């Protein structure tokens, strides 16, 4: 089926070349970082993880969010989603590829990455994250590819794929739970030390993932003859609405515990994000932007008329994507390191090379996504013809 990705119109090739150029710039910056070390980033001994790990965390959510198509389809026999499960699976593949690349570019010693496999360490959550992410990638490649090639031949997918599909559903939950455990089990990092972290991660993932999927479905409909379907998009809109409500509710729970208990360590992270701490207010406008977008998304998603209308639903999905990205892809990691173990606040902001590397990884993910979606579209058009 890969050959289908080699036949495309000018717009398709133009988009791929555009992504390749951005990937090239990112690669150039990465070679610079590889030679000089991570000192070319904005990270420091006080904020020792930054933009890379934050993007990784956000994208694990996008990858996990794909399950919101598979789950209703295979566990609730919601047939309409059968048409788009492969879109969810291929989105997960692209997202996990980005996750793995973001981990890779964050390593101080990337050439030693195989040490994680050569010295397996079950007490390290990072070891488990490596297992669940690679496993999820593998599952989605197997499932997506086999389901699609069976569909192309007009057959039902082979029997051995079915247990893998059922396995992939709890596996999606596991990737974001394990990623939350990276943060939620560290003594002395109060902002992260919360039992609801995994639940928060999952709820924001199930809002952001399907929101991105809705936007992708709308783009697919525009650029091809394949229509993912009105009903499908509408159902996804309902899922985004519920998940976003739960996500905002969970964030408010964090506020209650911190500010009713009045324990300084629990309040510091939230104060830093929304008001600024010791005069450091860098993230405050971002977090309020996220709040405004979350409110806008909730309004558009809760009112049935705006949720069902595709234009306003698209606006809501963009708002969900931006809001959850600021929350997880920016605020979460930096606030976890603020204040530092000495109760001091240090600013962190990504440098230009750091941003270009990150954008390069995003471009790589979209490159993979474009090729995979091109194959899906060609197969679907072929069947329809």
């Amino acid at each position, binding site marked *: 089926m890969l050959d289908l990705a080699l036949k495309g119109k000018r717009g398709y090739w133009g988009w791929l070349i555009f992504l390749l150029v951005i990937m090239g710039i990112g690669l150039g910056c990465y070679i610079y970082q590889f030679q*000089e*070390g*991570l*000192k070319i980033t904005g*990270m*420091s*001994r*006080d904020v*020792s*993880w930054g933009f890379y790990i934050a993007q990784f965390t956000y994208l694990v959510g996008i990858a996990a969010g794909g399950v919101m198509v598979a789950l209703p389809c295979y566990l609730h026999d919601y047939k309409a989603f059968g048409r788009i499960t492969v879109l969810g699976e291929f989105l997960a593949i692209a997202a996990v590829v980005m996750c793995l690349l973001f*981990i890779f570019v*964050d*390593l*101080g*010693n*990337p050439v*030693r*990455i195989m*040490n*994680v496999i*050569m*010295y397996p*360490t079950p*007490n*390290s*959550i*990072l*070891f488990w994250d*490596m297992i669940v992410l690679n496993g999820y990638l593998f599952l989605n490649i197997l499932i997506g590819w086999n389901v699609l090639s069976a569909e192309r031949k007009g057959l039902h997918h082979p029997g051995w794929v079915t247990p893998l599909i059922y396995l992939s559903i709890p596996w999606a939950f596991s990737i974001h739970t394990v990623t939350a455990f*990276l*943060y939620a089990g*560290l*003594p*002395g*990092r109060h902002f992260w030390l919360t039992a609801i972290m995994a639940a928060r991660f999952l709820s924001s993932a199930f809002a952001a993932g399907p929101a991105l999927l809705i936007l992708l479905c709308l783009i697919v409909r525009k650029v091809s003859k394949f229509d993912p379907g009105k009903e499908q998009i509408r159902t996804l809109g309902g899922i985004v609405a519920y998940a976003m409500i739960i996500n905002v509710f969970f964030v408010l729970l964090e506020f209650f515990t911190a500010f009713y208990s009045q324990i300084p360590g629990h309040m510091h992270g939230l104060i830093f994000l929304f008001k600024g701490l010791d005069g450091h207010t860098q993230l405050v406008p971002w977090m309020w932007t996220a709040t405004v977008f979350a409110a806008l998304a909730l309004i558009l998603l809760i009112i049935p008329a705006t949720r069902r209308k595709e234009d306003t639903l698209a606006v809501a999905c963009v708002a969900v994507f931006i809001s959850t990205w600021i929350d997880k892809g920016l605020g979460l990691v930096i606030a*976890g*390191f603020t204040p*530092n*173990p*000495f*109760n*001091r606040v240090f600013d962190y902001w990504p440098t230009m090379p750091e941003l270009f590397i990150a954008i390069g990884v995003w471009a790589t993910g979209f490159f993979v996504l474009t090729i995979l979606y091109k194959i899906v579209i060609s197969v679907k058009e072929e069947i329809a013809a």
Partner: protein
Amino acid sequence: MGVDRRQFLKIAGVAALAGLGGKAAVDILAPGDVEASMKALPLTEGKRWAMVINMPELNDEIMNKCIAACHEEHNVPEFGDPKVEVKWLWKEDYHHSFPDHHNEYIDEKYEHKFLLLACNHCSNPPCCRVCPTQATWQREDGIVMMDWHRCIGCRFCMAACPYGSRSFNWGDPRKAPKDKNPDFPTNINYPTRSKGVVEKCTFCDERISKGQLPACVEAANKLKKNVLIFGDLADPDSNVRQVLSKNYTIRRKPDLGTEPNIFYIV
């Protein structure tokens, strides 16, 4: 009498090593070292190393000498940039070292009294728990060690350490500014690190294996005795246990359950 099987085997092993030409072999590899280790055998046999820092006796001169001795011994370069600095032993005031002991009426002379900080060599170290490659691990004698040749530089240990005791090589230490480090590397018998690995205090494992006290303790002793006291917590008659039984001591963030092994006399 009083010699169990384990001790007997140890004594027999040392005797065999010295008797059967083992000393000659060691002499070729590391001349003079074997005498030192045999003379001071007790220092190499600790079960739980600990340090007591006598805060009232500390002064700037002692602290600076300790830090210089440590950083020279271990080739820790000066970067002159707090963002990327590497530090094994450093000065910090009481207020920031013990942020949970806050008291707004505390006297200025205590509040901003400086003391020495390093890795606490916790008995329950979160850094070792999170390391995905066992590049940092706890030895049987309690020392939290680092393998700079295995570390992949993921910095999970830095996120896990509640004491800010770990430093990352954001750049190549051998490219540290020459004007600040004219003699770098300061100790040719100790490795320099490569960029992209985490490092920290190791309680001078390389020295105690030779029966020598850690470099900072030795440096402090030259100026004043009993400011830094290093010894074995597992031995009820050890120097550190005696000091701990006679003085009121505190540890950094004990409520996190990490069981730090650096104690401060206030």
